[in-house]
């Protein structure tokens, strides 16, 4: 198996909506949105596909920042945006359906922001 090249383009948060609109105009579908904690920052990935061509863009924010919703462009994005708020506490502004933190009913608020395991270290040394 040879490694498939997968490019991720880092974009500014302020340019996000314009770039996503361009994807939509070109006929890309939204594959997924996800969040990764990188130190004290959060990487938000937006993945698109057109004819099996995979594209990924990324914004990097701190935990206090808000990000604009893309649910006005891709209606179905609300599931990913609500998920990001519920699990990571990322605040998304302008969602078409806002569950107010109740899409995933987790016992602990924003559990993925600071994951812990009962009585154990995050990465046990072996």
């Amino acid at each position, binding site marked *: 198996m040879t490694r498939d090249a997968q490019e991720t383009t880092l974009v500014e948060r302020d340019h996000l909506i314009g770039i996503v609109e361009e994807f939509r105009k070109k006929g890309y579908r*939204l594959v997924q949105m996800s969040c990764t904690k990188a130190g004290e920052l959060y990487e938000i990935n937006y993945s698109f596909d057109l004819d099996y061509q995979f594209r990924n863009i990324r914004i990097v924010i701190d935990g206090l920042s808000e990000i604009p919703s893309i649910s006005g462009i891709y209606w179905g994005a609300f599931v990913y945006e609500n998920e990001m708020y519920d699990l990571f506490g990322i605040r998304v502004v302008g969602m078409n359906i806002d569950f107010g933190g109740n899409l995933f009913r987790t016992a602990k608020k924003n559990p993925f922001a600071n994951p812990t395991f009962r009585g154990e270290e995050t990465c046990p040394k072996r």
Partner: protein
Amino acid sequence: MSKKIIVPFGPQHPVLPEPIHVDLVLEDERVVEAIPSIGYIHRGLETLVAKREYPEYVYIAERTCGICSFIHGMTYCQAVEQVMDIEVPERALYLRTIWSEYSRLHSHLLWLGLFADAVGFENLFMASWKAREFVLDVLEETTGGRVIQGSCKVGGVRRDIPGKTLERMARDLDVFERELKDIAGVFLNDESIIGRTRGVGVLSRDDAYYLGAMGPTARGSGVGIDLRKTGYAAYGKLQFKPVVETGGDCYSRCAVRVKELFTSIDLIRQAAAKIPEGEIEVKPKGNPDGEYFSRAEQPRGELVHYVKGDGSKHLVRSRIRTPTLTNLPPLVKMLAGCELADVPVIVLSIDPCIGCMER
């Protein structure tokens, strides 16, 4: 205009094998809006990458779903193999393809049985699940597990299938195919099935595409996306055409799954005939350092496993995007405007896998 009332659907309902809740806003018997809510069985599996070393995490990935567990494990392994630049032996890729297609057969037959049950056709339910036993027996014989196979690993597969067993499996498929043709004829032609499904829960092609529908939900609306066409595992060496229907209704989604049974049988036959001799695994060296979005075609549609490693034994992040999550917005669209009595059939028509979706 009549008064609007809200009827809760789920989380426990006879057609739902797993819990999901939908608030149905009704005017008389017609649904005007549907608001889903999930979170009853969220397990936080993705955070376990911090506890398990990357070769062990394949067991967690497999347990994301109790139906298409093998494909979860395989997609995760593909992601790590891409990050680590591992060349998986060709025989292992064929074996992964064969087990993936048996998983698809067993998932589709499970769904067909549940769907027959939802429309009140109990004999068809029993016939579908009886046929599914054949597939589960093969999976048990070749992997040791009926539902959780545990046969995929980073760098290849854990078990081989001997040549004679492969030949017998291909021969047994002839008998199985004849049995499936009988069942398929009922699903596609029976008046009671057609009456409950045709024109019900219609999703247009544009809505299916832009709302993120995947798998049979998308292909039933004329969107011919099938990730197997990207050629992962051994699919690039096999011939097949994605099954596409254009009706966009529950009947079309059912028809796609029925016809895909025969595509899977054909793919298994091709793979069994072409599988080369050789090794089934390579040992990974070092630890993953990088990131990758691995995609595969699950029975319900496109599955994405994202992994990110920093050179240590533990991955920094695993993100699993399952097809049921992306089929949720199209479901909301399908339910708006339908009759209350059709809601169970429409919900079931996306083949919801809630355990998968919530992870």
